[in-house]
């Protein structure tokens, strides 16, 4: 485990008076320079994990290691971690530069060395010209960049970001996503960031940990999580999906209620009940045949590059994302056939019937 920079081992947090733990035996390990996204619905314990790593709350049990050293007993102000709070938590009685310099001052760095470091940090987040402003006179995006500069200037061992983008409008959020990612890879700092926005997690993180009710459901690269979700929860939480369940009638083939046979590539016992999923973008327009379903288009949403259409087949609804450059685009009411390759069907779970 020693090649890992951050190791979280069986972390548990039960708040006083709570019946169930808010964080339940969570473990993960991060190599240096990696960015991990903690993703999950509201209340699943993401902030709690971050705050335990930061030392702001004490774990009920479990261990946290940084550089192979156990830090559970290290007080907050000696952990050398940078944190960007959801509400930024900038000091309102100080200037932008004052906020950024604070951490350096606490480390006893002499005044003469502070100035250039602060300027460099502010330049990095494109706030170089606003050092003398009061933080109350900054826009939301500028405040956030100030918070990032403040947490990076101390050259932290670990950067923690708690939903840093949730207060921003969509356009600024996209910009800041790229910017945070860029800064993180440039400085090579190991980072953990919390979000409940799947796009944010998929586009920013090297790896994702999808959480539900205090537990990590799956941890992996964005691609693994998206293409091979470990269970229904992960599949449903990340991206859209057509969830199909049926009985296995032959090796690699299940009879889906109302739809008919669907072939897939996973070992499953004949007679058992399986849960399968097809991502909307895996469907293609095709002629009727095996693994194809025919129905009338009853909804159509044009999204520029993608056309999302819904068809009804035997009481079930299927959703497909088609590329708009794919030649003929169906119209509402038209009868179409959607086909999926067996390899593109995601196998989720199997239960003996």
């Amino acid at each position: 485990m020693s090649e890992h920079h951050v190791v979280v081992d069986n972390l548990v947090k039960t708040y006083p008076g709570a019946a169930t733990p808010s964080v339940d035996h969570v473990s993960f390990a991060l190599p240096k320079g990696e960015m991990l996204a903690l993703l999950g619905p509201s209340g699943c314990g993401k902030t709690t994990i971050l705050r335990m790593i930061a030392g702001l709350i004490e774990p009920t049990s479990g261990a946290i290691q940084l550089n192979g050293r156990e830090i559970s007993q290290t007080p907050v102000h000696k952990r050398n971690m940078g944190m960007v709070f959801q509400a930024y938590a900038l000091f309102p009685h100080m200037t932008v530069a004052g906020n950024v310099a604070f951490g350096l001052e606490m480390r006893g760095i002499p005044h003469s060395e502070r100035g250039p470091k602060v300027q460099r940090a502010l330049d990095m987040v494109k706030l170089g010209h606003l050092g003398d402003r009061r933080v109350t006179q900054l826009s939301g995006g500028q405040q956030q960049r100030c918070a990032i500069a403040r947490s990076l200037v101390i050259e932290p061992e670990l950067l923690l970001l708690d939903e840093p983008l949730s207060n921003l409008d969509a356009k600024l959020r996209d910009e800041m996503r790229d910017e945070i990612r860029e800064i993180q890879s440039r400085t090579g700092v190991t980072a953990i960031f919390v979000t409940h926005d799947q796009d944010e997690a998929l586009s920013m993180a090297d790896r994702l940990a999808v959480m539900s009710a205090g537990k990590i459901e799956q941890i992996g690269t964005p691609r693994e999580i998206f293409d091979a979700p470990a269970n229904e929860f992960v599949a449903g939480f990340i991206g859209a999906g057509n969830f199909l369940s049926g009985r296995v009638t032959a090796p690699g083939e299940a009879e889906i209620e109302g739809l008919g046979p669907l072939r897939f590539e996973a070992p499953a016992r004949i007679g058992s009940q399986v849960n399968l999923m097809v991502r909307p973008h895996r469907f293609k327009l095709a002629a009727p045949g095996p693994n194809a379903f025919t129905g009338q288009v009853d909804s159509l949403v044009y999204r520029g590059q993608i056309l999302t259409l819904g068809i009804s087949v035997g009481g079930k609804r299927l959703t497909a994302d088609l590329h708009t450059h794919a030649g003929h685009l169906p119209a509402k009411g038209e009868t179409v056939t959607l086909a999926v390759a067996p390899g593109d069907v995601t196998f989720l779970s199997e239960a003996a019937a």
Partner: protein
Amino acid sequence: MSATGAPAQQITGSNRFMLLILLVPGLLALMTTFLLPMIWLARASFSTSSMAAFGGGMTLEHYHAALTDPFYWKVAMNTLSLGVTVSFFAVILSYPIALFLTRSTSRWRGVLTALAVAPLLTSAVVRTYGWMVILGDRGVINGTLQALSLTTDPVRLSNNTFGATVALVEILMPYSILAMLAGFGRLNPQLEEAASMLGASKLRVFWRIILPLSLPGILTGALLVFVLAISAFVTPRLMGGGRVFVLGTEVFQEATVTLNWPLAAALSVVLLALFSSVIVIYQRALRRLEA
């Protein structure tokens, strides 16, 4: 008198009219209970008749008397020093309480806050008598000291400035606690967390974050206590036993014993002007601090 520097909200056109209408009752009440008496007081200070009746001639002699008599200057200095001492101790003692109440997350916080300001439910007169029972020559403290044979003569704890100061500090503390609670709006536990994540120890979090951010509340509390202390009459009178000469007691003396109403009025106007300017300057400074 409130100096909590909450920024005024932007008011737009049609709201303005509504606002004026809503202000009318309050303004009327202020007119009759504050403004009219003030005008009467100002007029009385120039009056030639000793009962300050309207009509008669005008004279500046009372101002001359008030401003040239060294005794009144001494009274002004006494008042100022009592005000400063009382606000200093009231603030020192209230600050930890107000800070605790603001930062507490206990569910008893509401109850504790109510308890902290509950003394306001009894009148200052009653509480002053309470302090006389405690600090008097035959009071609780002296009684105990003598029973233990630690002293033979009573220790002078009342009928002097000390007694008046102690009683005023206690009586005015609830006001400073309330003013501080209202003025601590910028305190935020997340700022403290941010500071400690940046490497600040508990002590430095206090000096660099908590204290600066609570300064407006502290200064507001100090101002409120100062104003109440320099205008106090009952407590300095009863606890001072006639030996503490401050603004309130002297104006009372002139008005009810010497029966020189115009001089009492002139004294009041002079001291009013003096202390209003202190307060205006103070508030300017306070506002600059909060900007």
